[in-house]
C-alpha cells in the first residue's frame, strides 16, 4: 500500500501527501504495443493504467460500457458536455478511432476505487439513495441498454463533482434527456452529495 494513502483528499486537499502505490507483486502480461493499447497509453496520465484511475477526481474508464463511452466522447468533442480537459482529448480519441478506443477500455477489468471513505457517510448515503435506485439499480450498475451508466466503485470525488454539475445544469446543459435527472438533483440537499458519492464508491 502507498506510504501515505490518498484517502486524505477532499477536505484536506493540500495537506494530502499522495504517494504513488508501488507496483503489484505479480508480473502482468506484456502490454501489446502493436494494438490500440499503444495509442491510448497516454490516457493513463490521468485515468491510470488500463483506465483504472486511482485518483479521486478522474473517473475509472476500465470496463465502461461501449455505448456510454462513445456517447460521452462525442458529447465532449461537440462541447455538449463541456470540459477543458476532455474537450480536446475527445477529438484526439476521434482521430485515433472511437470504436477501437471504446472497445479497448470496455475490455479492461474494472478495479473499483481504492479510496477509503467514512463508514457513517456510506450509511447515510445508502439511506439517501432511494431516488437513484430507480434508474441506477440497487447495485448501482445502471442499465447499459438504456444508456444509464454504472456508478459502482467510481471515485467519490468524481461522483460528487458530477452531482454538482447536473444540479447546475453544467453537464450537457439543455439536454432534454437529462432534464428529469437534473430536476431530481435539484431536490436533493447539497449536504447529502458527499454521502451519496461515498455510498456509490463502495458498491461492487
Amino acid at each position: 500500500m502507498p506510504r501515505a494513502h490518498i484517502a486524505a483528499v477532499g477536505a484536506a486537499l493540500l495537506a494530502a501527501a499522495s504517494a504513488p502505490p508501488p507496483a503489484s507483486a505479480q508480473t502482468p502480461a506484456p502490454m501489446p504495443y502493436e494494438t490500440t493499447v499503444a495509442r491510448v497509453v497516454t490516457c493513463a496520465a490521468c485515468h491510470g493504467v488500463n483506465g483504472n484511475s486511482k485518483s479521486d477526481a478522474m473517473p475509472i474508464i476500465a470496463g465502461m460500457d461501449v455505448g456510454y463511452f462513445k456517447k460521452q466522447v462525442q458529447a465532449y468533442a461537440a462541447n455538449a458536455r463541456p470540459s477543458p480537459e476532455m474537450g480536446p482529448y475527445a477529438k484526439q480519441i476521434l482521430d485515433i478511432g472511437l470504436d477501437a478506443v471504446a472497445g479497448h477500455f470496455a475490455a479492461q477489468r474494472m478495479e473499483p476505487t481504492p479510496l477509503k471513505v467514512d463508514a457513517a457517510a456510506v450509511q447515510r448515503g445508502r439511506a439517501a439513495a432511494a431516488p437513484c435506485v430507480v434508474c441506477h439499480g440497487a447495485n448501482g450498475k445502471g442499465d447499459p441498454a438504456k444508456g444509464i451508466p454504472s456508478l459502482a466503485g467510481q471515485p467519490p470525488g468524481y461522483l460528487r463533482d458530477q452531482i454538482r454539475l447536473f444540479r447546475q445544469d453544467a453537464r450537457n446543459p439543455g439536454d432534454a434527456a437529462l432534464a428529469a435527472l437534473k430536476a431530481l438533483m435539484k431536490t436533493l440537499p447539497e449536504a447529502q452529495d458527499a454521502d451519496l458519492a461515498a455510498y456509490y464508491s463502495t458498491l461492487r
Partner: protein
Amino acid sequence: MRKLTRRTFLRASGAGAVGAALAGGLAGCASTMGETQPTSRRRVVVIGGGWGGATAAKYVRLGDPRIDVVLLEPNRQFISCPFSNLVLAGLRSLDSLSFGYDGLRQRGVTVRHETALAIEPDTKRVRLASGYLAYDRLIVSPGVDFLWDQVEGLPAARDTVLHAWKAGPQTVELARQIQAMPDGGVFVLTVPPVAYRCPPGPYERISMVAWYLKAQKPRAKVLVLDANPNIVSKTALFREAWKAYPNIEYRATNRVIAVDPGAKAVRTEFDRITYDVLNLIPPQRAGQIAVDADLVGADKRWCEVSHVTYESVKAPGVHVVGDATTGLPVPKSGNVANNMGKIAAIAAVSLLNDKPVPSVAPGNTCYSWVSDREAIAVVNAYKIENGKVVQIEQRLTPAQSPAVAARAVGWTQSIWQDVVG
C-alpha cells in the same frame, strides 16, 4: 567541462582507419573498466529518472519484460517540479512531492544512482565512472541545464543565487528566504526568455508568492522582471488572477543581464534593482549529457527528434525525450515528458522486436495554482500527420476555480503513480 565521447574523438582524429585503430586501443584500455553489468538479454539503458526517463524505463518493462532495463539517475528520489511552487507558499511539503524508485525496481528496472559520463553511439555504450554499460537502444531524458554565462556575475554565484527550477533543496531554501523576508521587502523573480522548462511555471510561482505575502507580509512586494514581451502561458487567466494581488509589479521585456549578490542587486537593460530575496531563473538548454554527446542542434541548446520514435536526428539508436527536445508543437511540461517517455518506450520495444512502430501522439494537461484553493489549466490534444505531431486543439479553463484545483490534485495522484509507481 566538455567530455570527450568516442564520437567526437573519432571526428577529431580524422580518418576512419586511424579512428578504428585508436578505438581498438581504447577498448584495450577499457578492459580494466569493462561492462559493469553483463547480460545476455537485449538491453535498454535510460539516462535520467525524471518525468520522461522514469516513465520510459517502466513502459519498456510493461511492453516486454524480456528486455533488460537499466535506469541511470544520480538522485535517490524523484521530486516533482509540478506542485513545488506550493512549497514556496507553505501549502505543501517537499516530502509530499518526493518518491523513491522502489516502484520501478519492483517492475524489474535496475535503478543505478550513478551519473552517465558519456554516450558512445558508435559502440552503443554509456560510460560511467565504474566502466560502461552496453545497450541495444538508449533513451535519454536529460532535462534542462542553465546558460549561466548569459547573466553577468551568475557563473560565480551559481550556488547562492537561487533558481529553484529543479525541485529540491533550492525549493526549500527559497521558501525559507521568503518566510524570513521582512514585511516591506522586495521579492524579485526573473523569467528567462523562451524556450524554458514549464512555460506557466514562473507565473504560477509569482501567484503563489504573492498569495503568501499578501496574507503574511502585506507591505512586501513581488517584482517580476520578464525577458518576454508578455506572460508566456495562460496569459489572460493569470492577468485575471493577479487582480487579487496588488502586491505584484509586472515588467515585461525586462531581461536580467547582470546580478550582484553582494549588493543584492540585479541589472536589466533599463534599470538597476535591489532586492531582499531573489529568484533568478536562468536561460536554459538541454541537460549537460545531451550537449556532451552532441545530441543538440546548431543552436547548441535543444535536441531535434523524430516525432514518432523520438530517435535523435543526430544519433541512431538514441531516443531523446522531455524538456530537452525541440521541433514539436508541445510545451516543455511534465505531462508531455511522461507521454514522450511512453511513446519512446513503445518505439524501442517495437524496434527491438522487429515490429512496425505505431504512430502515437502525446497530450498535454497542465494545471497552475493561482491561490491556496483555486487553479487554472491548459490542455493540448495532438495527432500525427505525415509523421509529424500536429495540434488538434488547445483549450483553457474558462476561469480559476476550486473544481480545477481538485482535478489538479487528481492529476498528480494519477501521473506520479504513472511515472514512478
